[in-house]
């Protein structure tokens, strides 16, 4: 009764309370970001493989080793303070820092590290392939990954790999260190805590996961015991704002500090805004179109080459893609070790016509293009359609939802498909392994790299790709990747066109926020405002 009377009294008070808008700037110790986070499906670092999930996990979990910053390719210690490679080139020994604690206060040991790496293989979720490529399997991983004492982690690869490749993998999201005790306390049916860790965390990184509400928000809180000291800000809140126009209003109004998914025209509209600035960071995706070699014309290398001359790379980059993409035709993104920065192809209709004639298609042909229905990609394929028509190649564009295009592409049901590819980790092998490897072109091949998806069977080039992954000498290795990129450029079924920039709008007071060259290099720790 009393409660009811209270409510009645309150209701009466309300009538007089008036409509005073309360919203002011975001709290001073909290970073609020508007972002589309509907790609996030799990918080388990052994399972997560979505951009938002990886970014969040980067800030919640510490890793065996890490890249120094968002843009640097210098490797530094993570939970390990130092490491060494054995003379056989197959054994890596990591010395774990003393005195580290998980966010619940439990000390961090080499046992936790071994457990974390092993469970990636044992769980066999999406990112497992990162480690299986080292030759680790469910049967051997407990022997090949182990704690030799409480502060020493030793990993062994059955065959020799380039140390830089192994190091890159030990700095990837899958090398996040999960607290073994907490995970196993919540284990169900032998899932190594996966069910629990999907929505909880057992981490030692700079931020503690307070909550993840799917399609709503992620809230992180500073962990004062982090090995490099407490983060500058107390809290980070990522709000799911699906509509970019709404993100724009929020950042202009100061209800969020950073808007992550603005469209080019919206970013342009911020020019002259005194409170909001636009920051640009290089991305690492490769925007390209695949040509399926099961489609008759593309079987001929001359035709494939002709297609590469029928794209107005610079025209696009200097007009509607200006400031958001740059021309990059090598399969390794600019910024990666061994990236080939020369772009040999440009629009040359006469040359393309000649090549088409040599390839047996003097009058061109008709081709269907399955394209991801995003604003930038739509403009790109429309430009391609127009320039290709000049040589008689009539392209019919079928725009679809991204997942739909990928489904078609993976089933090799396309003639052409326009998509983007993101590298999996910061080592050249990641893209080489997909653009330049296909040794089994059958429908039930055990892996389906991009070369496979376009029916490009390349046993010889695949050997070179494998050799490059194992080359211990960094300079030689770089040269091998340059060579591979040239071969793919010359013969491959890929029209590689652009590399994007990431652009964000942030309030003027936001300092030190940088979007990593990929998602798991975006750090919140030093952000201040």
């Amino acid at each position, binding site marked *: 009764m009393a409660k009811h009377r209270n409510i009645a009294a309150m209701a009466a008070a309300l009538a007089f309370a008036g409509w005073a808008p309360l919203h002011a700037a975001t709290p001073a110790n909290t970073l609020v970001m508007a972002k589309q986070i*509907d790609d996030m499906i799990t918080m388990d670092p052994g399972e997560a493989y979505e951009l938002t999930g990886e970014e969040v996990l980067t800030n919640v979990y510490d890793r065996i080793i890490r890249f120094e910053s968002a843009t640097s390719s210098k490797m530094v210690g993570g939970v390990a303070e130092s490491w060494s490679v054995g003379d056989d080139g197959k054994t890596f020994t990591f010395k774990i820092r003393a005195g580290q604690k998980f966010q619940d206060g439990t000390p961090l040991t080499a046992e936790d590290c071994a457990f974390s790496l092993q469970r990636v293989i044992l769980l066999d979720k999406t990112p497992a392939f990162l480690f299986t490529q080292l030759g680790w399997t469910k049967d051997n991983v407990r022997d090949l990954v182990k704690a030799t004492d409480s502060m020493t982690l030793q990993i062994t690869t059955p065959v020799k790999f380039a140390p830089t490749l192994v190091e890159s993998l030990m700095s990837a999201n899958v090398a996040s260190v999960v607290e073994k005790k907490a995970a196993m306390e919540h284990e169900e049916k032998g899932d190594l805590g996966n069910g629990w860790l999907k929505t909880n965390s057992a981490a030692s990184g700079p931020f503690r996961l307070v909550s993840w509400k799917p399609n709503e928000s992620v809230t992180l809180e500073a962990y004062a015991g982090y090995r490099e000291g407490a983060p500058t800000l107390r809290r980070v809140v990522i709000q*799911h704002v699906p509509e970019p126009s709404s993100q724009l209003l929020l950042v202009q109004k100061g209800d969020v500090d950073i808007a992550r998914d603005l469209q080019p025209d919206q970013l342009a509209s911020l020019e002259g805004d005194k409170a909001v600035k636009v920051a640009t960071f290089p991305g690492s995706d490769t925007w390209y179109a695949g040509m399926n070699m099961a489609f008759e014309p593309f079987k001929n290398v001359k035709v494939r080459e002709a297609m590469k001359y029928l794209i107005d790379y610079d025209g696009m980059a200097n007009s509607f893609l200006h400031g958001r993409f740059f021309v990059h035709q090598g399969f390794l993104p600019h910024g990666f070790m061994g990236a080939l920065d020369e772009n040999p192809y440009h629009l040359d209709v006469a040359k393309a016509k000649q090549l088409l004639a040599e390839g047996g298609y003097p009058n061109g042909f008709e081709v269907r293009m399955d394209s991801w229905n995003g604003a930038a990609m739509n403009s790109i394929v429309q430009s391609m359609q127009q320039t290709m028509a000049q040589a008689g190649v009539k392209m019919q564009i079928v725009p679809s939802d991204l997942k739909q295009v990928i*489904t078609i592409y993976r089933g090799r049901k396309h003639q052409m498909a326009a998509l983007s590819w993101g590298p999996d980790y910061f080592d050249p092998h990641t893209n080489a392994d997909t653009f330049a490897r296909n040794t089994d072109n059958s429908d039930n091949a055990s892996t389906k790299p991009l070369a496979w998806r376009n029916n490009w069977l390349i046993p010889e080039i695949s050997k070179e790709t494998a050799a490059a992954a194992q080359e211990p000498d960094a300079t030689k290795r770089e040269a091998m990747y340059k060579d591979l990129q040239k071969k793919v450029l010359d013969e491959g079924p890929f029209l590689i066109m652009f590399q994007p920039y990431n652009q964000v709008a942030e309030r003027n007071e936001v300092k030190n926020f940088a979007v990593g060259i990929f998602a798991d290099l975006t750090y919140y720790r030093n952000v201040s405002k």
Partner: protein
Amino acid sequence: MSGAVVTAGLRSQWTRHAAGPAGRVLRILLSVALTFLGLTIVTFVIGRVVPIDPVLAIVGDHASAETYARVRAEIGLDLPIYDQYWRYLVGVLHGNFGNSVLTSRPVLQDLLHVFPATIELSLLALVIGVALGIPLGVIAAANRGRPLDHVIRFASLLGYSMPVFWLGLVGLLAFYAKLGWVAGPGRLDVAFADLVPQVTGLITVDALLDGDMDVFWNALQHLVLPSSILGYLSLAYVARMTRSFMLGQLQQEYVLAARAKGLSRWRVVWVHALGNVWVQLITVIALTFGGLLEGAVLTETVFAWPGLGLYMKNSLFNADLNAVLGGTMLVGVVYIGLNLLSDLLYPLVDPRARGRT
């Protein structure tokens, strides 16, 4: 001839009476069950013909073939479709709607989380739509052909034909960005998030229960614009329907008779004529509410409102079948519930419906 018709009529009335309340319940249950079954079958089949690979939503594009095959088998996609359907049905009958692959949580738990957000939005929208729509409709009808009628009809036509997405953005631009009268997208400001315990899931109600007026005001400031926009849309519909129902009544002879007897025009319109259209209006209101609950996708997108519409859209785009089926069934239940509710309300507003079962 006529005798046969009469007996048939009597018999059917007799069966209805004999069956009594128990029969009625049985009939309702049967129709609910059939509706459910139909819903699950249709949604299941649609989910299977969607040209999106559901496994992709889980493992992404980079996973190895082994992982892909394992997950495919895990969610039962390697089974024949009737087998998949049967398994699903058995699960549902045991109260298990499965897990959403997108949120990693049981679908039922997801729905219980997102549905209140939508209810809160829709209820206020409905109140706005009905409280303004019905009087406007009545006024328009009573002033048929006069300027007032034209103004109301124009305004409601506008609400009816305006894209809600655009309306939402313009609303935000004007009332949030420029005038600062209301709060922006989202259900609460960050500073007020998670301050009151969740009881009903309606933040305004939870805040009142907890006695936290700051949260209440903030929630209301976030709520008022999206629900006004949705309210305007339902107002448009309700007003147009009210007007046409009223026009039908005002042409009836009893209206003329009542006026001739000396009753005031006001009384004839607002009591006698309006009294006769309530039954129809209840149906319209129920349908409007149903539409609001399931059809707020665009509003929820613009206003970053984590409700059912957004949840369903996201699930559909990722072929997250359990979530889509669960959501569809929830909407189905709501429609059945609203239909029942309006059935129950008829006798309250229409004496002729009383005594009938």
